[in-house]
């Protein structure tokens, strides 16, 4: 099925929203809805959060458990405050924003994001952290349901991007472990490598590079090809030695040629 330009716009908006909110929230569960919109959802024993991204507008709602929504509405542009609120309310840690802080709350209320005075909501403060393993598991569960297409993001790739940007190198290692699952399809492995290669996140470059370089040894040509593209996308000069070795043993002529092109680029790029 060919996608409409609206679908493309929604995907772009979802990516943009992730970029805007990534520093302020835990990685969401991402779902593509039948109407083409994307949903970001969070659910913990403290409550739930929901953002729906459309072509022209976005809707959001944040609820504490057992209470009416404390924030919600529609907006043309999502502001980071929504991510801050989700994090503070659903994933409180000593380092997260204290929503009882009158300065922060005044700033948030002043921006018109809240339908009531959320400073009255009681939020326990403890060290509970979101389980990275389960988040990675949820992301890979989504990979079975999505249709991969070059140039397009989907629920799976958006979750991977959000997880890596939010949780850093440790989650890249968890993703690498998940890729070794014998049930994992070559398509999912390849798409994960492409995703790790194209995201811009300097903090995780080393960890992502290690995962991608290792994949040059895969028995699957599709996976080796994706690793080659990912190395190109990262302009990963640390991969030149592994790439040379991979070229020597590569049996598929066109893939060998592509590897040689990437190697030449890495060796000559400024």
């Amino acid at each position, binding site marked *: 099925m060919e*996608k409409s330009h609206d679908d493309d716009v929604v995907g*772009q908006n979802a990516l943009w929203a992730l970029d805007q909110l990534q520093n302020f929230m835990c990685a969401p569960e991402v779902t593509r809805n039948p109407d083409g919109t994307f949903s970001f959802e969070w659910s913990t024993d403290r409550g739930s959060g929901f953002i729906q991204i459309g072509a022209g507008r976005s809707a959001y709602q944040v609820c504490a458990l057992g209470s009416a929504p404390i924030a919600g509405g529609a907006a043309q542009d999502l502001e980071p405050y929504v991510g801050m609120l989700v994090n503070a309310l659903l994933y409180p840690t000593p380092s997260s924003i204290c929503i009882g802080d009158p300065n922060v709350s005044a700033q948030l209320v002043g921006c018109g994001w809240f339908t009531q005075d959320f400073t009255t909501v009681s939020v326990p403060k403890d060290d509970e952290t979101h389980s990275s393993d389960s988040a990675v598991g949820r992301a890979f569960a989504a990979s079975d349901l999505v249709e991969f297409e070059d*140039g*397009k993001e989907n629920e799976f790739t958006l979750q991977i991007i959000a997880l890596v940007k939010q949780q850093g190198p440790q989650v890249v290692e968890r993703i690498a472990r998940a890729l070794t699952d014998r049930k994992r399809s070559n398509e999912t492995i390849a798409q994960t490598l492409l995703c790790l290669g*194209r995201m811009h996140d300097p903090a995780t470059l080393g960890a992502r590079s290690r995962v991608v370089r290792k994949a040059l040894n895969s028995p699957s040509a599709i996976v080796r090809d994706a690793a080659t593209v990912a190395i190109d*996308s990262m302009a990963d000069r640390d991969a030149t030695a592994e790439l040379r070795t991979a070229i020597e043993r590569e049996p598929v*002529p*066109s893939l060998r040629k*592509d590897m040689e092109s990437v190697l030449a680029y890495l060796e000559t790029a400024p």
Partner: protein
Amino acid sequence: MAKLLRRIQHKPNWDPQGEFSTYLPPGQAPADSLDDIATDANRLSIWQIDDEGTNLDRVLAAMASPRENLQKLDYLIFDIQDVQVLEIPVEASPGNTLDQEANKSWHFHLTHLSAAALASLANRMLARGPARRQNERQLIALLDKSVANGWIDQSRLSPSIRSKLSPP
């Protein structure tokens, strides 16, 4: 003889000397290659490339234009004769890219496709392989050219792609 272009996603499956060639008879496309020519309503989207290939760069830029990232664009070019010999109907059908003229002029659908015809087409396409690739740097250059020529409205490109193009 005009050429046809099909976007593909799994490039190693379209190399006649791919890993599958060690266990499949010569000329037989691997079953996995059918993923790249999946039909919708028994139709397959293709682009027409003129004899001299003068519209190739513009078609590739058009294909890249609605994307959210430009990591790679893989494609395979084959002869219109490969379609005619299989008696597959070809119908003009507007494309869905940001280059409106390319959409109208060069986008077609192969129609009324049967599973058997699709498998035969895959074999014929494989014989025209290997597939080709445009990387991000090449796609940026192609999009720059299409924007400069006024074929694509830069403001409609995704923000991440727009930020990589040359300033107007």
